[in-house]
Structures are given as C-alpha cells and as structure tokens.
C-alpha cells in the first residue's frame, strides 16, 4: 500500500542521501535503511527510504515472469 518508488542513491551523508529517480533528484532520509550505500537502489515513501531493492531478486522475479508468460525456450506452459 502507499505510493513508494524505486530510486538510486547517488550521494549519502549520515542519515540522509540524494536519491535519483531516472534523473529527478530528491533528498531523502536513509535512517530506516542504515545498510544502504551510494549505488544501491531503495524504495522511497514520503521522503524516506524503506528498504533496499535487491537486484538479484528482481532478476529472479523477472525470470519467473517470463516463464509464466510462456517466454521460455521450452515453450510449454505448466
């Protein structure tokens, strides 16, 4: 629920950072994701990063999506 958007941390300073959403920059609080660093993608809600986006998981999800949509080499659907 709630509008939250993935963005790239381009600069981090203490608890805040500059997050870039496809070139649109906004200063956000990173206090809720202390492990996130510049170069990480985070999900941002009302000016706060809530979680780090895991690129490996994202790729895994996309692979499952492609399979479910019938785009695997095998072609056959379950």
């Amino acid at each position: 629920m709630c509008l939250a958007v993935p963005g790239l941390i381009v600069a981090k300073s203490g608890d805040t950072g500059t997050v870039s959403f496809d070139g649109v920059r906004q200063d956000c609080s990173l206090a809720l994701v202390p492990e996130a660093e510049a170069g990480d993608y985070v999900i941002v809600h009302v000016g706060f990063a809530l979680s780090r986006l895991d690129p490996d998981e994202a790729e895994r999800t996309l692979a499952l999506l492609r399979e479910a949509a019938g785009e695997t080499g095998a072609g056959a659907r379950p």
Partner: protein
Amino acid sequence: MSVGGRLDLKHGRVDMTHGGGGRAMARLIDGVFRDAFANPRLAAGNDAAAFDWPGGRTVMTTDSYVVSPLAFPGGDIGALAVNGTVNDLATAGAVPVYLSAGFVLEEGLPLAALCGYVHSMARAAEAAGVEIVTGDTKVVERGKADGLYINTAGIGRVPDGVGPSCDRARPGDKLLVSGPLGDHGVAILSARADLALDAGIVSDTAALNGLVAEMVAAAPDVRVLRDLTRGGLAAACNELAQASGVGMTLDQAALPVRREVAAACEVLGLDPVHVANEGRLLAIAAPGDADALLAAMRAHPLGREAALVGEVTDDDRRLVEMRTAFGGRRLVDWLNGEQLPRIC
C-alpha cells in the same frame, strides 16, 4: 517623453506612490514598461492605442496570470503572459497582432525583478511577432497580490478558409499533440521549495503561432486547435468532447512524455495527462488530413516530437477513454480539484 528623476532599478521596490497617478507612477511606466516594450504606439503616450484594421474575421482573447513562483526553470510570469495569450489567438486560427498588458503590482516587489519579467515579455513578444501597444499599472498593499499579477488581452486576424472551433470534432477524426506532456507543470512543482524536487525539467512555455501557421497551411480545415494548459491533455480532451458531443480514445503508448517528467510524476503520484503545459497544443483533424498535419508539425522546431495519440469516437456519453499499454481500458477523467501530490 521623459519625466526626469531616477528610478533605482537595482535596489528599489514598488511602493504605493507608483500606483498613485503622479510623478512616481509616470517614472515607473517610462523607466520600466515603455523602455522595454519600445514601439511607436506605446511611445505616443495615449491611454488607448490607435491603429488601422484590415477587417475580416477577428479574434480577441484575454487571460490573467497569477503563477507562483514568479520565476521557474525555463521561464517566468512575463513569458507566460505573452505566450499564453498569443497561443489562445493562434489556436483560434488567428494571426496574433497586438497585445495589451495590465499589471497589478504588490507593494514591496523589487524593481529589478519587475524589470526582469517585463524584459521577458518584450523578448517573447518579439519572438512571436506581436506588439504590446497599451497597458495599465496598479499597485496594491503588501500581501494582496502574490508579488505580481498580469492580465493580457490580444487581438488577431483569421485568414480565409481557416476556422477551428471546439464544436467541430467528428467521429473518426484524429488527435495529435505537438510535443511531450507535462513539462511546465513539473517545472513549476520543482520550483516549489517544499517539494525539494530537482527534475532538470524546464517549462515548455513558447508562442505557437509560427507552428500553427505551418499547420493551417498544410491543412486549412483543421477542425480543432487547443493549447494545453491547466488540467493538461485530460482537461482539453474532456472540454472538447463535451463541446462537440463526441467521445475520444487515447492510446497510452503513443503519448509523448519525457523520462524525467514521467519519473517526477511517479514520485509525486501524479498522472502526466493531468499535468499542465504552456507551449503544446492538441489538434483534431479529419482522417485525410492527419498525415500532412503531422508532417508539418514535425518540420517545425516546436513540433519535432509531435505524435498521433488517438481518435474521436461516436459516444453520446462524451467520455474520454484510454487504451492502456497493457491492452486494458480506463477513463481519462477531468482532474478532481487541485492536483495534490499523493502519498498513498
């Protein structure tokens, strides 16, 4: 005619005497307005401008500009005031000729800023090929005018054979836009300090009369021209659907939107079809004219990214629908109330 004395254009501010009708006001008009809008009619110093008029179909329009902040990436209130009125004339099919300009100044407005906006108007007028031939100045107390309000009225002549009108759209007609949606609205939102958004987007404010001239040369019987302003493409389409008694279908995948504008809209929870433009137009043309019109638009600097975005349908409910990028259907409704960023 000069009244002597000096205005401190660098550090001075508007005060109540500048609206009082006395020497201070004359100095202001001389030093700020007449200087910037230099043309013989204004220099004559009359309250009203006199000119000969060739006759024929004539269009007149007026608009008031109350934008805040007064300056934003890509423009300011002055540029908007000229371009907006020129565009209203142009989308009525007219060649814009003369403008008037009325100013309501707030006590305390820095004269340097005022000069900036006035020079911006002068530049925009020159680029559009129009003259500002008459004007008016009033001053109100601090707190009563958000810095500056401008009203412009304009007059132009419609060439024979040209007659776009909001009630002329017919089922089967094609919808075209002259370029990417939402630039102006996002530029304004970026300039609002409370949103702290750095979008790198500049307002698309521009005079469209040159583009329109090319368009009507290619397709004189273009049915409708409408410049996109507050409420964006959605407002324009819904207004025209109501006026013409038709429905419309837009193709979401065909709508041109800059990457950064799309991203800013995602972050703020806004829909680009509702976001304002100030230098884009919507054209509705008979199917046979669409290709020629698109080519003419793309050949002009202000129409390079023009696109065919939909068609007019036979729908007495007058609804504007959209085919989403996923093959689904949804309405493109009027915006409800003011566009506020969503959190949810």
